[in-house]
């Protein structure tokens, strides 16, 4: 399975679209992940170590919701909204990807939904351009891929045991 890659330019375009959405919708954070739980781009007011976990849980949650839709005869549910006391989450599928917005009481779900719809239209052509491994590290001859096993895969603490 070759996987897929996004170029620096695509990464920049995605980041710009997500930060624009965050500003317009007055959101705390905006994430884009794939259906396998990989975070492909994000914009957050503050960096957090929980970001990979958020992507994994969001992808899992969305996949479960898709199965629920199938069971009741719907082709798919394309959005999920979790309402919290202080902070809420709005998720919407964009092609095969997932757009996730975390927002507080300074904005409303209606506003978030409105700007997510707008952002989705801008994101679609960028996401459509991501095709397999047409952009790969191998193209960048300045950085040939090589395994460095001098200190174990996960550093000295992660050395294989005997």
């Amino acid at each position, binding site marked *: 399975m070759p*996987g*897929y890659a996004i170029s620096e330019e695509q990464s920049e375009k995605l980041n710009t679209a997500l930060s624009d959405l965050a500003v317009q919708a007055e959101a705390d954070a905006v994430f884009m992940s794939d259906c396998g*739980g990989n975070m492909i781009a994000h914009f957050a007011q503050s960096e957090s170590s929980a970001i990979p976990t958020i992507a994994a849980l969001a992808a*899992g949650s969305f*996949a479960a919701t898709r199965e629920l839709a199938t069971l009741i005869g719907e082709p798919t549910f394309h959005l999920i909204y979790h309402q919290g006391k202080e902070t809420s989450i709005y998720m919407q599928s964009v092609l095969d990807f997932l757009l996730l917005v975390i927002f507080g009481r300074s904005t409303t779900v209606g506003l978030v939904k409105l700007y997510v719809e707008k952002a989705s239209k801008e994101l679609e052509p960028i996401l459509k351009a991501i095709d397999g491994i047409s*952009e790969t*590290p*191998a193209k960048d001859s300045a950085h040939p891929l090589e395994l*460095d096993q001098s200190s174990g895969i996960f550093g000295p603490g992660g050395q294989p045991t005997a």
Partner: protein
Amino acid sequence: MSFVNLGKKEINFKIVYYGPPLSGKTTNLEQLHEIMPDDVKGKMTMLSTQQDRTLYFDFLPLQSSAIKGFVSRFQLYTVPGQQIYNQTRKIVLTGVDGLVFVADSQWEMMEVNVESFENLQENLKTYNRALEDIPYILQFNKRDLPNIAPSHYLEFLLNGGPVKALCKEAVAVKGKGVNDTLNTVCKMVMTQFIEAHNMPSDGGNKEPADRAKDG
């Protein structure tokens, strides 16, 4: 399905721990979380039932600088072993890059080991994928218990496919073998990734079976 972000110089890999109920999949991740240095590991998340059985999946993100010039992010998942959660197991397999099949070495668990292994292959078929194409390891867990089958018998049951998988013995509850298993599967996944991109690596010209032997 590996994902490369050239803007951030990141490569993402997904490793799934599969196996029958109570074989030690969650214990593997718990021990890894315990062992790994703080700067390598992220938050471990467990979606469990009230009885501490895996309901959806467990998740542990790790990062490495093993591929020069890139941050390699490994997302470790377990699946729920119980039969009723097959749909969930399928979901967790989405985009998997590497697999660890955690088998329970106890004699009475041989049938469920085989059932779970067959279930893994069936579930991969739903994504048009085959076990032979994915780097995977067989981990024979619970080797400290008295009533266990010999490793060669487990190999006979589970390792008869066209590609011979590497087998590792483990006592996950004591942390024995868990790091070795992870390091080996991660190395296999990265080697396959590098080969797929036609770039040189230490194991670049080897067949999958030879890579497995190298560990």
